[in-house]
């Protein structure tokens, strides 16, 4: 269906005038439908948009901006913030380059009017160990209807403000505050708008990051490590600043590549969490992927036609040869296949939609599901039972 729509839009693009609006409507509708179908974002909730500057996350930012603008009918009703993780240390960028990219992005973020946080990769060394723990979610929301869930959310938000004025308490918000206070060092993430520090990290920290990544032998492992570190930084910022949801800008094509890569990496058991719409593994913070139905081609067209600003930043695998890492190889495989068989990406997407996130089992007394320290997924190391052939 993805592909049919795409062909429809391509064929229409020939006469630009009214059909530009047609495409925009289609694009916006997809975003709203994705949010509306999954009903996970509550009105008034604080949502952190993780923007890397690339086309998909810039399109996400632009969609949220549009959705919240006063002229839009049926406005979106959450409170966004933006986070940008500066990974220049990992990619070997000089301080000038990082500063240049940061200022370009800050211009874009300021134009949006949302609060933004720039976090440097060097800050991983001051993360508390609470990022490696999963907080239990406020309530078991599996069986609640949407309306009940919203009521529950509003109630907890009210009691939080009561708590701030010294009245009443709520165990959920207590847990969140305690988690953020666990750090022994001062959290040095920069906050947008007011920055007095000229350099929030030291050259030693940059060197430490480089050494850390250089100690990893393969590019595949390095990419995974970087992804984990980035995730922890985003998670911690969300906890400290009181955000309960994080929106990522993964597009359909990107998720198709991620799906196959994760199978190759041995993460087949967690495909639903890694590529699904919502990722509940952290308990108190849910990761949400509203861009997962857009192919990278649609996003590129949208950004071009509606002049969405985006900044290209080099990543670890920029200009790497095709077989440098599993991720790169899978991406090249899928793009080549897609060129000849345009339904490749949408087929993979449809398959991934059928995978459901298993709700985390409630932890019974005395029983503890073992989790991986880094990715917080349940350990999947039990070998299956083997059938011994009996020789009689």
């Amino acid at each position, binding site marked *: 269906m993805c592909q049919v729509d795409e062909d429809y839009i*391509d064929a229409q693009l020939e006469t630009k005038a009214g059909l530009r609006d047609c495409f925009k409507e289609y694009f916006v509708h997809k975003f709203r439908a994705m949010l509306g179908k999954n009903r996970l974002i509550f009105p008034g909730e604080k949502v952190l948009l993780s923007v890397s500057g690339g*086309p998909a996350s810039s399109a996400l930012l632009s969609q949220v901006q549009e959705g919240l603008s006063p002229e839009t009918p049926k406005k979106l009703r959450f409170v966004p913030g933006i986070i940008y993780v500066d990974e220049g240390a990992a990619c070997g960028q000089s301080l000038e380059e990082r500063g240049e990219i940061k200022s370009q992005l800050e211009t874009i973020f300021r134009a949006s009017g949302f609060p933004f946080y720039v976090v440097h990769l060097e800050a991983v060394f001051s993360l508390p160990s609470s990022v490696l723990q999963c907080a239990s979610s406020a309530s078991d929301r599996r069986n609640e209807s949407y309306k009940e869930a919203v009521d529950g959310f509003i109630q907890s938000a009210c009691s939080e403000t009561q708590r701030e004025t010294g009245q009443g308490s709520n165990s959920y918000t207590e847990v969140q505050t305690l988690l953020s206070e666990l750090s022994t060092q001062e959290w040095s993430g920069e906050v947008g708008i007011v920055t007095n520090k000229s350099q929030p990290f030291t050259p030693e920290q940059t060197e430490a990051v480089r050494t850390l990544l250089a100690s990893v032998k393969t590019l595949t492992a390095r990419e995974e490590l970087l992804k984990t570190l980035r995730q922890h930084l985003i998670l911690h910022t969300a906890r400290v600043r009181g955000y309960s949801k994080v929106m990522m800008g993964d597009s359909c094509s990107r998720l198709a590549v991620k799906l196959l890569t994760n199978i190759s990496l041995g993460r087949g058991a967690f495909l639903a969490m890694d590529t699904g719409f919502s990722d509940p593994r952290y308990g108190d913070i849910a990761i949400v992927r509203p861009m997962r139905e857009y192919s*990278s081609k649609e996003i590129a*067209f949208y950004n071009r036609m509606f002049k969405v600003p985006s900044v*290209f930043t*080099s*990543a670890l695998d920029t200009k790497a040869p095709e077989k440098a890492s599993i991720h790169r190889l899978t991406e090249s495989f899928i*793009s080549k296949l897609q060129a000849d068989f345009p339904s490749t990406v949408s087929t993979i997407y449809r398959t991934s939609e059928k995978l459901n996130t298993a709700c985390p089992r409630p932890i019974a007394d005395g029983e503890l599901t073992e989790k991986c320290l880094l990715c917080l997924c349940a350990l999947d190391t039990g070998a299956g039972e083997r059938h011994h052939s009996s020789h009689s």
Partner: protein
Amino acid sequence: MRMTSCQETEEEPRFCNVAVRRPPRYRAKMAAPIDLHLEFGGGAELLFGGVKDHHVKLPSQSEPWNVKQLLAWIKTNLLRERPELFIQGDTVRPGILVLINDADWELMGELDYMLEDQDNVVFISTLHGG
């Protein structure tokens, strides 16, 4: 074009240097040089010295320029490094979107589209690196 041999017109040697024109049907049509505005985005500009906008003038040649020839010309004249990250065989690498005058090149005939003066061709990489 055939030059008259001096020996044939010995009586009037001063007309030796006059070229005799062939009938028109034997002359190939000359295409005028065309100006194009090329843009590179999504990381593709890294292969072109980091420059996103290029205004180029394609030299005149016997046949009108098509996109296939443009790609070959880009490979020879503009591409600074790693040609395999931009071109694959005759065409662009899969994952690179090509827009001609803001329309998908698939609608314009892909490699066979005949370029015209002042056309805008955009190459956007939708892949991770480059």
